[in-house]
């Protein structure tokens, strides 16, 4: 789910960036440092929408660097347990399938896929119902529920299920 949140960060700036464009340099450094990163608490920082406040700089002892506390608003994407998401399938194998929702990867184990679906190997591996009416393959859109999340250094990885009510394939690319 997307959130609009205010975060704070201490930015260190080298004296070469001081001068008229100090604030602009600070903002571009903030964008370079923060956009695209991921943390466990906030999730993926997708984009910075504005700077709320830049505090007074503090010169660090021994070096000429100055630390500025910056408060900024940003859009973050963080999946939660119990959340319902629509994701696009990226890979199917006999253990289950991988899907992507925004910057987040979700894995759905074959144990969390309906019992009436079976894995079919081949050029285009897929999960199909016994009567062949529903298929999950690469580029299918599925609605799934997140049942667990794990945060790595740079990304969030989730486990999902499609075994509950109102979950499953939304859109079949071959249809």
């Amino acid at each position: 789910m997307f959130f609009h949140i205010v975060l704070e960060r201490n930015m260190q700036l080298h004296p070469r960036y001081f001068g008229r464009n100090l604030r602009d340099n600070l903002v571009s450094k903030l964008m370079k440092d923060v956009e695209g990163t991921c943390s466990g608490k906030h999730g993926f920082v997708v984009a910075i929408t504005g700077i709320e406040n830049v505090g007074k700089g503090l010169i660090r002892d021994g070096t000429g660097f100055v630390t500025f506390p910056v408060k900024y608003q940003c859009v973050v994407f963080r999946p939660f347990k119990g959340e319902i998401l629509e994701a696009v399938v990226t890979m199917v194998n006999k253990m289950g399938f991988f899907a992507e929702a925004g910057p987040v990867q979700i894995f759905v184990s074959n144990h969390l896929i309906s019992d009436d679906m079976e894995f079919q190997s081949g050029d285009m591996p897929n999960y199909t119902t016994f009567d062949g009416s529903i298929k999950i393959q690469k580029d299918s859109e599925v609605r799934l529920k997140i049942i667990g999340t794990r945060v790595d250094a740079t990304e969030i990885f989730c486990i999902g299920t499609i075994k509950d009510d109102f979950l499953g394939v939304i859109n079949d690319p071959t249809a």
Partner: protein
Amino acid sequence: MEKNGKGVSMPKSSLKSTPSKDDSSQKSKEGRKVQFNNGGSPEERFDYSKSNGKSSSSADKGGNGSTANGKASKSKEKEPLELRLDQDRLKNAKCLMDSEAAEILQGIQDQMTLLSQDATIKLPVSFHKGLSYAQANARYTNTHSVRRVLDTLKKHGVVDGEISVIANACPETAEEVFALVPSLKSKKSILKEPLEVALMVIKPLRKVDSTSV
């Protein structure tokens, strides 16, 4: 799947029940639960345990398995409320519907084309993925109206996170909402009518999608 390749361990007894999909009746009886440890502990593994979330089973292997199972029953209770609990962690965070996020991110991208004179400012990959995801799931023609309608549910105790999930899921009926957001089930009697009304109001605001089933 290198991340999870470290330790995929399965208790020996549960191996008997896994081999083929023909054991569907056995499967439904056992009600297996796949558990994924939260928090990135060093020994992350899938525990296939015969648990309905109520009691630990004898199929556990060692201490880790039993603590994990103890966790399983707790997490099953926690799970429906997770959306609410985590709201406390993200204080001052405003939940965005996918449509709202799409509008914001599109605005930023339009701005970036103006600022593209500075070649060092590049939009990260997660931005493009986030934008295309939000645009694909932006289902409403008028986001503000949808937000106003769904905010009326707040007075019945529905939190921001739940409202966003309802908006993103585009449910047809109140029953679907209660199935997708289990934390609302406790207030089913109070919420059913206002939900039906709200869903009826926002239905005409949905974008017509020719590819949807």
